């Protein structure tokens, strides 16, 4: 072995060790919660530190699923997500299509203004939105929350899909127009299937936002039975986390798994899909 090869070998080993340590440090919080979620009651308080479940039990999972309204929260989350995705897409797709295909007066201005409006931090609208909902009688209803979630994701949806529509050649549409299809038919049959990657990324982003939103959910829904999963778990830990901590770790795992699966499925789209429409003016 020459000296050069030897040095290369040493450098690779050092790099591998560094990455193993880095991955370990990264995964500590998740692994610790995972092991606690399968451990008996005393494990969290014991002085020792272990990443392997002590007195293996499914008790925490049973507790979160049957002692708390977990399935109700899950159902609410699914209803809210589905409703938000539907409303956001129904509003954003035609607007994105119009902004991409037609050059009409006010188009550039509209896109700009939308981007500026999107800069306002949502958290700070909490109070005003509470007023809107009370005024319209939508307080404490899923419909009100769906409107708010859809509105907050609408600008992202328009920009993201407009960017993708721009890359679909117009000639394809013109051919179908000669065949006598009207606008709506053409969008549904030609444009949407071609824009599938952008549509999927947009829908998943909406899904993730709704799935993870706790502040609006717990402020605008007054009855904990109507909470989404995020709202329910947030409330669970804010009531008394020392008693519920093991249960909460189990709940965290259950709430994270669906997102983890979706995330790794679409991860390759995420970087390009997120930055494409975000900043380019």
């Amino acid at each position, binding site marked *: 072995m020459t000296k050069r090869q030897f040095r290369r070998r040493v450098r690779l080993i050092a790099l591998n060790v560094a990455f193993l340590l880095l991955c370990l440090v990264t*995964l500590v919080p998740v692994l610790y919660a995972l092991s606690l979620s399968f451990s008996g009651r005393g494990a969290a308080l014991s002085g020792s530190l272990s990443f392997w479940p002590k007195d293996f039990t499914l008790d925490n999972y049973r507790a979160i699923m049957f002692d708390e309204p977990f399935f109700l929260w899950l159902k609410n989350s699914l209803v809210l997500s589905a409703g938000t995705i539907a409303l956001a897409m129904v509003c954003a797709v035609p607007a994105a299509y119009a902004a991409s295909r037609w050059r009409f007066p006010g188009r550039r201005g509209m896109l700009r203004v939308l981007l500026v409006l999107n800069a306002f931090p949502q958290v700070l609208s909490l109070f005003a939105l509470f007023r809107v909902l009370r005024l319209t009688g939508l307080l404490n209803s899923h419909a009100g929350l769906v409107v708010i979630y859809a509105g907050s994701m609408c600008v992202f949806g328009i920009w993201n899909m407009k960017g993708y529509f721009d890359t679909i050649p117009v000639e394809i549409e013109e051919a179908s127009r000669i065949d006598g299809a009207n606008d709506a038919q053409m969008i549904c049959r030609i444009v949407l299937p071609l824009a599938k990657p952008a549509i999927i990324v947009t829908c998943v982003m909406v899904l993730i936002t709704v799935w993870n939103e706790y502040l609006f959910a717990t402020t605008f829904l007054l009855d904990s039975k109507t909470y989404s999963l995020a709202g329910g778990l947030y409330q669970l830990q804010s009531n008394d986390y020392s008693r519920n901590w093991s249960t909460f770790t189990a709940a965290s795992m259950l709430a994270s798994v669906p997102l983890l699966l979706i995330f790794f499925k679409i991860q390759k789209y995420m970087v390009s899909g997120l930055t494409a429409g975000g900043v380019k003016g």
Partner: protein
Amino acid sequence: MREKLGSKPWFYCLPALLLVVIVIVFPILYTGYISLTNMNLYHWTDYKVIGLGNYARALFKFDSGFLSALLTTLLWTALNMAIQLAAGFFIALGLNAPGLRLSRLYKTLLMVPWAVPAYISILLWRVGMFNTEFGVLNKLLTMLGLGKVDFLATNGIAFCSCMALNLWMALPFMISTIDGALQSVDRSLYESATLDGAGFWVKIWYITIPAIRPIIAPAAVMTTFITFKQFDIIYLLTQQRGYMTGATLNTVITYAHQNAFVSNNYGLSSAVSMLLFVIIILFSFATNRSLRED
């Protein structure tokens, strides 16, 4: 084939615009209006317009806390971005090192924090890492025979704890962006540089960084905005209702939130919100221009 459009495009945009007006425009206008009034706990229904008093109070009275919150936010954003870019760059560089066979595995494992829902990450860290009884960090300290540390008790240490958590949550995006950019760099540039006798650091400085800068810039700008607007981490770690940890750390957003929902000073909170909005708009115009010139 140019058809007459008329009002058709606006008809297509109408549902989206309606939604945006209700959910985004109205709250901004309403916040703007409230910022000109003295609405607070004592003037809940009988509030009246008082002009620019709230703005003056936020900007010129140092004890209002706004300016120190703004300083904290700037420090928070600058430190986070600097560490994120540097750490993300070197980790991505390591992942692309020739001969590293397990790099795909490492990359997947390093992406895990990105996939965990944000509020769950924060709550898991709050109890699982930082808590004095349940937290991993304190268990480690005890095992090493050291005293316990309350990682959220005072401003300095709470700031560092929040930053550690923010890095944990945000680094995966940075790593994967920079990793993608690195793979687009032309390999032949390195080979000719090696022939010219250039060392590792010289190649990084004169080839890698200039090549990836335009690709990373939009992602870096986006992350800067997200970091600047970060609310959940500081709120959930240190100032949940009933679980104030003792730290009085505030960024501008938590400051505005706290003024509205804890001290019920809606006028001041709205003025701060509007100032924040203006700052973000100015900043986004500035970055938009510099991105285009790149």
